[in-house]
């Protein structure tokens, strides 16, 4: 794939990110660098930008993944000799005084499949040889 391909993939990724509330992950300003000597800001090359945005997306997923809850419970129970919490909950305000809504963080979404696919895609893009995509015609590039 060439820069045109990466730009088209980036555009799709940014749109999808915005649609799931990951607006900040999609913001272009996170993928620019300043030349310390001239002060000039430039965007990362498209492939680097795409890889960096996929990494940021993985971080976005990692903090919602049930696996993080289970890892936290395990870490704390290994650290303590006595009793330890068996789960973490979240209390959010309700519209009735004194009755918060209780959510179990153990019921956070299972994102293993999504994150596995994401890592596979990242690896494919990283290892891409930079040849122009053979199917660009279908996307008008």
């Amino acid at each position, binding site marked *: *794939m060439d820069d045109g*391909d990466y730009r088209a*993939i980036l555009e799709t*990724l940014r749109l*999808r990110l915005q*649609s*799931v*509330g990951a607006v*900040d*992950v999609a913001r272009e300003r*996170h993928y620019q660098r300043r030349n310390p000597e001239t002060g000039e800001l430039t965007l990362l090359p498209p492939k680097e930008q795409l890889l960096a945005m996929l990494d*940021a997306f993985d*971080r*976005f997923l*990692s*903090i*919602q993944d049930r696996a*993080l*809850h289970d*890892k*936290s*419970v395990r*870490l*704390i129970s*290994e*650290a303590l000799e*006595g*009793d*330890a*919490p*068996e*789960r*973490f*909950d*979240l*209390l*959010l*305000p309700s519209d009735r005084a004194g009755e*918060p*809504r*209780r*959510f*179990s*963080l153990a*019921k*956070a*979404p*299972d*994102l293993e*499949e*999504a994150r596995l*696919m994401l890592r596979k*895609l990242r690896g*494919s893009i990283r290892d*891409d040889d930079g040849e122009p*995509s*053979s*199917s660009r015609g279908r*996307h008008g*590039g």
Partner: protein
Amino acid sequence: MDRNGAIMAIDLIFQAYGYAVMAPADVSFIEALQSGKLYEAYVLSNVVADLVDRGFNVTFQPAAVGAPAAFAFKGGAGIIDLNDAHFVINLPRSQTLRLLVDIEFDGLGSTRGTVADYSLRHELDIVVTEATAGYPAHHEIFLGVECKAVANFEKSIVKEVLGVRREMSLLASRRRSRLSKLSLVPPVIVPASPASEMWLAYIDDRGDDYMDSPRQFGIELRNLVP
């Protein structure tokens, strides 16, 4: 893989994400996860493990009512209520400190003049304190932890944490922290009076590029990757 294959893979990833987040079926819950509430649990676990490694005797104190096996975080910061689940740090001679989450403290500014507006208090995600009720004073905090679960670390985070640090203590000559005076190893040196410790925990390793100046104010940056 070509362009079409990559775009198709992206669509499948978002489809899988969409199905997964539909299961909890509550927008507020997903918003809270996206804002880092689950990451706070992970950082709390790291703080507990760190305190134990430093030789402290830490015990879990379940909530007085409700779910005894659960440790609950709140949607926003507030006062200390020892009926909530927390951790107790047992010290010699029956002294105790407590490890709590989502706490607001009275800032140092209020000790230097009248402060009666919203700038009186500031939030810490995780605290170790000797206070047992209400809003702790800045000098009652032994350790304060800020958690930043943002996918892209930015300099504005450092500015924010430097501001909170300013409300916890004055810049002073380097000294052993109050917390580390109570443990055997290792000594933690902070340039702060009162000699509280402060951590900034974050998921994006670009935060590592902003360590040097906060360290001069006794803020330790920790890249805790889930």
